[in-house]
């Protein structure tokens, strides 16, 4: 398989995992106005949950139950949803700022717990050899294409699930809460219940995305789950693509991931072409700040010229 094609496939898989995160966030923020800044935490929980369940026994970490991957992914979503439920219970009755602080704090706590409690997930050394689906095929040249297909099917499934749910009286209540909580309560809706449902369902998708990441990379460690990549970047994807628009959320994920990881590809290429080792060294050094600047500039431009995102919300007629 040619290099470019295999690069595009790996790009697609990661972008697809981000798309699932973005769809989850869109349900919470785009449709309900819940400010979740702990995406990386829900993602991490999903990733660790399935690793514990599906890997064979190992002295390095908890679990090792050797369960089927399908089951592991299911539990990833369920555990993540459960944590969201526990966070939502005390915070969703308060003003929105509290949810933001709670999710932010809990996401960091989760990362630090996995860093420091080595008996849980082998600390900073992480968990390796997490099984891949249809592992006997994993040496085949088109294995990643198969993985991409799985991700694609899951995205389609989630997309239709959310679309159907949103285009209903249920979705109408969520949007009303996003617009004005007090009015929604004054017309008889139990606002707390709806916010909890939205938070839990969105976080379940985030957990599932974490599980998929685990099985795709086969290795996880706490420093993967830094808020920069799995919280901040997901927010950028949603804002760029168009909050309140599921297709926009997916498009935003693919676009931003292409830029994010493409900039790496580009600087690598430049560093390699350059004959002067000083210049190539410099290019390698600026690589990671460069892409943050690049993404930030694009975000600024979109916010200035298309404040509702590239796609924006569709009016329901």
């Amino acid at each position, binding site marked *: 398989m040619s290099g470019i094609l295999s690069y595009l496939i790996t790009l697609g898989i990661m972008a697809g995992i981000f798309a699932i995160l973005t769809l989850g966030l869109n349900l919470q923020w785009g449709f309900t106005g819940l400010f979740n800044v702990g995406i990386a935490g829900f993602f991490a929980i999903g990733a660790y949950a399935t690793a514990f369940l599906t890997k064979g026994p190992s002295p390095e970490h908890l679990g090792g139950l050797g369960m089927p991957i399908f089951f592991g992914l299911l539990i990833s979503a369920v555990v993540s949803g459960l944590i969201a439920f526990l966070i939502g219970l005390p915070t969703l009755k308060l003003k929105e700022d509290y949810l933001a602080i709670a999710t932010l704090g809990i996401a960091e706590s989760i990362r630090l717990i996995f860093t420091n409690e080595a008996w849980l997930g082998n600390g900073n050394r992480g968990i390796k050899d997490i099984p891949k689906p249809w592992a006997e095929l994993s040496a085949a040249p088109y294995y990643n294409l198969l993985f991409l297909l799985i991700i694609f099917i899951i995205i389609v499934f989630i997309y239709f699930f959310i679309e159907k749910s949103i285009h209903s009286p249920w979705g*109408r209540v969520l949007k009303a809460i996003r617009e004005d909580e007090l009015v929604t309560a004054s017309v008889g809706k139990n606002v707390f219940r709806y916010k909890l449902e939205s938070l839990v369902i969105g976080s379940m998708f985030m957990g599932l995305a974490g599980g998929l990441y685990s099985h795709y990379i086969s290795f996880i460690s706490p420093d993967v789950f830094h808020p920069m990549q799995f919280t901040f970047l997901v927010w950028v994807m949603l804002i760029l693509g168009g909050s309140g628009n599921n297709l926009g959320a997916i498009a935003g994920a693919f676009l931003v991931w292409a830029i994010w990881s493409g900039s790496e590809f580009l600087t690598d290429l430049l560093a390699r072409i350059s004959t002067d080792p000083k210049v190539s060294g410099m290019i390698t050094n600026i690589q990671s700040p460069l892409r943050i600047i690049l993404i930030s500039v694009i975000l600024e431009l979109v916010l200035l010229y298309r404040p509702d995102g590239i796609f924006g919300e569709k009016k329901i007629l």
Partner: protein
Amino acid sequence: MLVIKNLEKDFGGIKAIHNCSLEVKKGTITGLIGPNGAGKTTLFNLISGIYAPDKGEIWFNGERIDGLKPHRIFRKRLMRTFQISRELQKMTVLENLMLIPYNQDGEGLSGVWFLPGKVKKQEKNNKKRAMEVLEFIELIHLKDEYAENLSTGQKKLLEIARTMMADPEMILLDEPGAGVNRTLMNKLVEDIKKINANGTTFLLIEHDMDLVMNLCDPIIVMNEGSKLTEGTAKMIKSDPRVLDAYLGV
């Protein structure tokens, strides 16, 4: 219909509502007037469940409702509007209305997924009702417009339309006439009269004395957190205590 007994509400030492007792009779359009800071909007917030009172009781249709959450009070068929229109901005006028009916099966995810036929039927009925209301309130041409794009007056009409969708037994209107021009005001008055003729009780706060005097009977005057007096427009006009309250003597 609505009975308030010895209500108290403090905000950090300020007695917003102090030993307030009053009653609204079924079928009336009762006016609630008083100088700024008299506690009218606070009273509305207490009745509609946004705040819980510190002391006292609120009874509606023979049931005690003080301390209940806003959505529970709505379900007792007591609804309120807001002083500054609070339309659901990024939702169409039609969506703003279709949100209102209570007990929609499609408002639970299980209904959306397992009772699609029933939900579709209810949606059709709710849409029909919403269109009738929009027809009555003369906003039908704006049904697909985002509510944020409406003018101030149209937003007031939308608030009225929302109460019509709910078809409550009693409506609390917080300054329906604020920021509304004469023509629209007359329309509002006519609409309120028509809805009242169908048996809905109103309690309304208003600063526009013309509107209060020709719409409300009786009129309750509040001052410093409690009821000062109550009577017909004529009685209120000639009561020296009311003038004193307004002039701050």
